[in-house]
């Protein structure tokens, strides 16, 4: 897993998209594509070629997991790692998502000043893990 630059962020709440945008672009210096629904993400993901999916877990129509399944269906996006964000505090939901291969689960409310750093941290830990496993 290389450098983390491009993040595809999906959240149905517009205000949260604005804050996440500030947190990731202004504070974190990432290149971010924000989508308001799973459907929108599916339409735009292939052209954007993200390094990471950052998905809200609870969304109407297509939820986070369903969106991920669709996104992974595109060629070139099969291996893109995912981090979920959730306002549901249940530990079992988070554990379950990690078991299914999510890099991390970030609880809402998140701290916009720390979000970018948190994502980099998760990314780094995961890369090291992969590296260790490869060796």
């Amino acid at each position, binding site marked *: 897993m290389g450098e983390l630059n491009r993040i595809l962020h999906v959240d149905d709440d517009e205000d*949260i998209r604005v*804050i996440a945008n*500030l*947190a990731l672009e202004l*504070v974190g210096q990432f290149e971010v594509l924000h989508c308001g629904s799973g459907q929108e993400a599916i339409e735009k993901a292939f052209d954007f070629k993200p390094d990471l999916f950052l998905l809200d877990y*609870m969304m109407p129509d297509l939820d986070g997991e369903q969106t991920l399944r669709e996104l992974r269906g595109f060629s070139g996006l099969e291996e893109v790692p995912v981090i979920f964000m959730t306002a*549901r505090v249940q530990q079992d939901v988070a554990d379950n998502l990690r078991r299914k291969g999510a890099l991390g689960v970030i609880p809402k409310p998140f701290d*916009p000043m720390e979000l970018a750093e948190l994502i980099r941290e998760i990314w780094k830990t995961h890369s090291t893990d992969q590296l260790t496993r490869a060796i």
Partner: protein
Amino acid sequence: MARMIGLRNLQTAKPNRLHNAVAVAATFVVVSLLIFNTGSEWFLAGMNLAYVSVYLLFIGALGLAVHRRNQILKLQADLVSEQEQEIALIHAAINTHALVTVTDPQGFIISVNQNFADRYGYSKCELVGKSMGLIYPDGTSDPVFLDIRKSLAAGKIWAGECEEMTADGAKVFMRSTIVPMRDEAGRHVRSVAIRTDNTDFHRAERARFLKNLFDHLQDEVYIFNARNLNMVYANHSALNSSGWSADDLSNKSIFDADPNMDKRFFRAYVTPLFSGEKEVVSIDVNRGKMSGEISTRMIRGDDGEMLFVSVLRDATERKKIERAKMESVSVVSHELRTPLTSIKGSLRLLNSGALGTFDEKAQSVLDIAVRNTERLLLVVNDILDLEKIRAGKMKMEKSNVDLVPFINEVVAMNKGYGDELRVAFEFKTDLESAHACIAPERMTQVLANLLSNAAKYSPTFGTVHIGLREEENYWRISVTDDGPGIPEEGRSAVFESFSQLKSADGQNRKGTGLGLTISQKIVHAHKGVIDFESELGKGTTFYFKLPRHLPSIVSIDAIEAMMLEDISDVA
């Protein structure tokens, strides 16, 4: 009695009249004979035949009269003896059937029959001279006793049913008739009481009433022997859902009621009843679409046998509502947390200076918004916690934890909060280690809550003392502040939801009002105790106690052995 005596007088009168008639006839004959003897010549000469005839007639009449008299006398004697026999028989029957007492006008016992002595558990001689008050629940001041005395004194017969008491205090139900006896001057000299024992009838009637009630109860009721688990009783609902008929109940055991029931599990389920740890044990069950709760308690039957009474209540509706409620709480939490995420995020960005700086006034307003958002989030989290605990969804993964390093760690974690309020935390204990079985995450929550409360109520530059010591079978963890204290009248409200007491020093402090409620629930889930001691103006010590001994894993065999032991104790 009076009627019988009258009859006897009537019968003795008839033979007396006959007796007089015979006497008159005899006198007439004697006078005739004298006349005949003085004028025998004249008699022989003319009137011979006629006189002889009259004479013979008189003799015959006399003989007949005497014979009749004897016959009547014999009849009379027979009748009297028959009556005496009858009276003796009646007396014997009453004596055998009923409980008889004779008392003086003040209610002191003159004599009792054997039945009475036996039923009330006294000997005949120990009762003589005692007041009848001793068989009434309230003694000589018992209202029934007084009512009887009053009625007898007025010369009236008292009849009725009432509850009385035997020597060993057992209750008996008696149907009594008590008759006052008077002398010739009309004075009340004694009373005769006849009682019949109605206790069994009463008991049967009550049992019938209860059975009728149970039979038609909507809940399923199973009563079975605690020793062999054989069925004793099942009500209509229970029979229906088990597919039994009332007739073949005696061949069934409780395990026939539900083929899925695991014997070992069942024994483990009822163990707390034997150990006396609990009076009622409950368990949720699902049967097809129905979900319910079985509650079981143990009672001693009339014959001394220990019985289990299990009641299965259909809780399908309640569970449905509960589930819906949980879902709505979860939805609300989501709906609240989403906007809070935006608010908190926006404020954080503004406050960080990343979007430019504010002047002092604007900054102070921003700080208010930040603080209150934080508070709102805490309330939402606390409500969720409480709801989780209430629904039994709070994770309580317990492990063996040494409380000494554990407390040190939690205190260190909360140091930052103390620093903000300029309050120091100081943990001291004489113990080197203190092992307990706790859910560390939850216990952290409890201790952190007590620490933050203590810090909030401490004066600036104060110190909060944390202690740990052994107390009987518990570890006692205490958090002491030297704040304003809690008035005694506020005691009951301390652990209530959303109750933030008006502080003794009049200052308001921030908090959700749920912290102690949650802490209490967590401590209770550890079979612990939480409470406080406080002195106004001096400070408050909140403490919680956790069981010292790690709960040992009891094998099923041990439980079974214990059950048998308990049963043999009972037997």
